[in-house]
Every structure is written in C-alpha cells, then in structure tokens.
C-alpha cells in the first residue's frame, strides 16, 4: 500500500501551478510597468525636447476653462431659447386678444353701428388694439435682443476651437518627433498662435479685474472722471 497521499500530491501541483502563474503575472506586470515607464520617459523627454512641457501645463490649466466655457454656451443658448419662447407666448396672447376683440367689435358694428360708436365701443377697441400692438412690439424687440447669444457664444466657441487646434497641432509635432526614423513624415506648417482678446466673461464671480454688468462699467468710468 502506498503511503503517498493523492490529495497532497494534487495540492502541491496546484500550488506549484499557482506559483508559476503568479510569477508569470508578476513578470508581465513588471514588463508592462517598465514599458509604461519607458513610454512616460520618452513622452517626457520628447515634450522637453520640443519645449512642450510648459505648454502641457498650460493645456492642463485651459481644459477646465474650456469645460466652463462650454457650460457657459449651454447656459446662454438655453436662456435665449427660454426667453424667446416666453416672449412668443406673451405676444401670441396679445395677438389672440386683438383677434377676439376685432370679432366682437365687428359683431357690434353689424348689429348697431350708431350704438357701437355712440357707446364708445369703437373708441375703446381702438385704444385696446393700440396698447396690445405696443406690447407685441416690445415682445418682438425682446426676441431680437435674445439673439445676441450668437455673438457671445460664437466668441467663446472660437476660443475652445482654438485650444483644440493648438493641442492637435502640438500632438502632431510630438508624433513626428517620436516617429521611427524610416517612417514617412508629412511636414506640417506651424502657424504662430495669435492670442485673441478675452471675450465674454464666462464666470466673473470673484474676479476683481472684470466687470459683470453695465452699472460697474459706468461706475468705473465715472470714478476716472469720464
């Protein structure tokens, strides 16, 4: 009778296999880690070599700004749409009023034209229509003013697009720099980046260098004697 325990042999084999697997995993992890390290070093050296390290820092600062700019666009377009729909609702209410009053006064005139004039119905109607028309005109002006979001968001979009284009351009330069020697490389033209003016204030809260409404502009100019 054999003294060998079959369960024990099986456990040892399993244990050995697990150890081997663990070794393989460890080796793979180390290899991946080393590769990542080499890539990071290569990226770091390339960025430094290209003078891009500082730019990457700038991007890191600008990306959250781009996010808040996109939020600003979403807010402004949302507010404009809301404003237009509200003004349209109010203008339509005035229009309905004019339409129903016209029908009512028409019926009164058909029934008894003299009485319609004598009792003041016609004059009241004229007065009411004049008032309603004025209100409709105000609503139309507000609808027109709401379109200013096009200018404001357009400027902000241009800035975000500019940032994306700059990052893309620098990444292309990086790719060219790190490409294998025999890889075909297409030359890219490097247009100098011309910074624009600041444009709309996306979030002026807590920034003492900007104004957030017209009254602050007037106060500032008045304080300077203009």
């Amino acid at each position, binding site marked *: 009778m054999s003294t060998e325990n079959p369960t024990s042999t099986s456990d040892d084999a399993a244990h050995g296999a697990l150890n081997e697997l663990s070794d393989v995993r460890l080796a793979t992890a180390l290899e991946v880690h080393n590769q990542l390290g080499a890539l990071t070093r290569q990226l770091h050296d390339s960025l430094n070599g290209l003078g891009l390290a500082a730019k990457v820092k700038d991007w890191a600062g600008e990306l959250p700004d781009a996010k808040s700019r996109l939020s600003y666009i979403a807010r402004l377009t949302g507010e404009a749409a809301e404003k237009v729909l509200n003004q349209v609702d109010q203008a339509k209410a005035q229009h309905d009023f004019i339409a129903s009053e016209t029908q009512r006064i028409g019926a009164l005139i058909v029934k008894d034209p003299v009485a319609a004039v004598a009792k003041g119905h016609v004059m009241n109607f004229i007065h009411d229509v004049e008032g309603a028309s004025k209100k409709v005109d105000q609503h139309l002006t507000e609808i027109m003013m709401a379109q*200013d979001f096009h200018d404001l968001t357009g400027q902000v979009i241009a800035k975000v697009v500019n940032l994306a284009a700059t990052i893309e351009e620098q990444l292309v330069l990086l790719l060219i720099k790190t490409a294998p020697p025999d890889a075909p490389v297409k030359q890219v033209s490097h247009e100098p980046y011309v910074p624009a003016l600041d444009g709309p204030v996306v979030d002026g809260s807590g920034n003492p260098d900007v104004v957030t409404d017209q009254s602050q502009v007037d106060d500032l100019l008045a304080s300077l004697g203009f």
Partner: protein
Amino acid sequence: MSKELRFLIVDDFSTMRRIVRNLLKESGYADADEAEDGVVALQKLRNSTFDFVVSDINMPNMNGFQLLSEIKKDDKLKHLPVLMVTAEARKEDIVMAAQQGAAGYIVKPFTKATLEDKVNHILTKMGLK
C-alpha cells in the same frame, strides 16, 4: 428740422450688427451703415460721411482699439464719437478705451434702454441732439 444723423455699426457678427441697427432705428436713428471689421470701417469712414460710430472690440483684421486709435489720429475723423459695444469686460480694457478717446462703453449683453441712453447722452454732450 435737424439733419438726420448717420451711424456706422462695426461688428464681425452680422447678428449683432442687425440688432444694433434695429435698436437704433427704434430709437429714431434710421440712417446706418455696417462694417464687419476695423479695416472696412476705416475705408467707409474715409470715403463717406458719418456722425457716430458704434464699434465692437474683438474683431479680425483690425480690432476696435486699433480702429479707435486710427480714428483719433485722423484729423478728419477724430471728432467722431465712438461708442464701444463689446463683450470685453476687463477693467483695463474699459480704462484703455476711455483713455484712447472712446465716447462710451457698453458691455454685452446689453438692453435697448442702455444703448438708447448712451447714444442720447453722447449726442447731447456733443450738442448734436
């Protein structure tokens, strides 16, 4: 009857030019022309007669500050009131515009009442109203 005043509206966004033009018309100033940047504005100002300039700042080719500077350097144009209507809200920009001779400064977004008030105030100050 006083002569009708002629306005030049300078902005790279056509939407904003239309808004300003319509608002001026509603305020009684129907005679207006438009330019999409400072270069075009300067050409129009030198080739025609205007009484008032409403200008954006952030524009391609020639921005509002450069336009203002060119206007103030030109003996034939320097008397023209220039009202800046812009999204540029930095205090240093506002001060710079005033120092360069801008007649007024409006930050976008603005209201009809603000534009009307500023235009009327400038015209009254210049004795044109």
